[in-house]
């Protein structure tokens, strides 16, 4: 039985649409924290949104949600991973769009804005999974600049932004900038093993 972290849902009740939430997790609890963030937004707050996949391909994430009985057909996925693999874009889902590479940060922003333009949902979120994956490809200053632009773009449009990251894999300057830009922090970065 998959167990969600209910404290995340409680924390999310305190954020508003123009908030930007930094969600920290560790290597071992990444999906649990992601699901615990996404599911309340979709089910409790009836939000639609855009899921930016920089860590794993979108199909893998959709299948992981389906495995725990969660329908994510109302979420649009932007996949930055699969175009790097020949044949990776031949997928059975129509809610996935592909961007050639995590290098093309502006394209990701524009593609997200495009999806939100055609979205019929009243309330939306955008979720980046995850900053540490973007940091593999992008130079520190550019990534910090991008997150600054990204967060402010959606805050201005009253779209909730969720920024996932594994703190010990993110350049310190980017991490400290995130602390500055984001309005809220959900910290599950240190996993307690019982």
């Amino acid at each position: 039985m998959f167990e969600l972290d209910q404290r995340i849902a409680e924390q999310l009740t305190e954020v508003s649409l123009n908030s930007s939430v930094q969600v920290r997790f560790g290597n071992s609890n990444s999906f649990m924290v992601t699901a615990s963030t996404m599911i309340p937004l979709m089910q409790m707050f009836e939000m639609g949104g855009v899921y930016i996949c920089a860590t794993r391909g979108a199909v893998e994430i959709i299948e992981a949600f389906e495995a725990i009985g969660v329908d994510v057909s109302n979420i649009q996925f932007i996949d930055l991973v699969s175009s790097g693999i020949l044949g990776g874009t031949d997928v059975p889902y129509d809610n996935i769009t592909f961007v050639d590479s995590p290098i093309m940060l502006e394209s990701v922003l524009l593609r997200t804005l495009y999806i939100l333009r055609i979205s019929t949902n009243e309330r939306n979120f955008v979720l980046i999974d995850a900053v540490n994956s973007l940091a593999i490809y992008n130079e520190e200053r550019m990534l910090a600049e991008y997150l600054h632009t990204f967060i402010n773009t959606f805050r201005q449009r009253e779209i909730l932004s969720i920024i996932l990251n594994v703190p010990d894999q993110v350049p310190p300057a980017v991490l400290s900038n995130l602390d500055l830009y984001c309005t809220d922090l959900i910290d599950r970065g240190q996993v307690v093993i019982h």
Partner: protein
Amino acid sequence: MSHPPLHRVKYNPRIAHASITAIVSLWSVIMQPATVYSRDRCITGIHGMDEILRGGIPYGSTVLASGTCGSGKTTFGMEFLVRGAQAGEACAHFTATEPSVKLLENIRQFAFFDMNMVDSGLINVFDMDVLYSWLGLDKASFDLDDVHALIKAIVDIVNTIGVTRLVIDSVTTLCYKIKSEQLIRDFLFTLGKKLATLGCTTILISEITSATQNAHWSSFGVEEAIADGIIVMGDVERMGHLLRFLQVVKMRGTAHSRAKHAIELTPLGVMLTPMLKWGAVSDKTSRWGS
């Protein structure tokens, strides 16, 4: 001349109040900002473009849209016409680089384009080859008379249909037939002047091989001097990936942003966002590098 002693001039509150009021009125007239004249705009309707141009292209301007291959020039030009047609304006597109049938087939994949606009006569697409045949200009190079005949034909079409938005795609292909720089200059200057008189805002699409800082903004180097505005489109190469960009280099009659903007060709049309400052220059080894 004797002055009354100061202590004998009585303070009169009414006179004092009147004086202060007069000074305040005079001051407010002096300090009032002069009325700023602003030219009427042709609202492009392209996402982000009117914001860059602080309201749109000044009416009647001739704008050079220069770009490398695949940078989105044709889509940009066609969207400019579609947005005009949606507002009820008559538009014309002269195509010299590809047949009109092929152009329309390519542009139909975009959701912003509606074939009914062509059928209803709001967007008029002309093949330059057909126009050359009408004018009997089936020759390798044009002389002064040919150039004047071409200008007259384009202006007559614009005048007859009442075109307010015009795109010539591309002026480079068209000018290949005009052998002298002077003649190219005359052609573009006269065409731009006549179209402006008719209140027509024109986009001249120009092909360039490199959109770097050291490059010309046009193929022949003369178009950029004639145009009222220059919009450059190209690619920034970032670690082996090409990102499209657009930059307004010049636009007479309006303040505008001169920053590089990343563009994406979406089914809804061109979308723009400011390019990341730390990623606005191509990798040094790239042929696009500046």
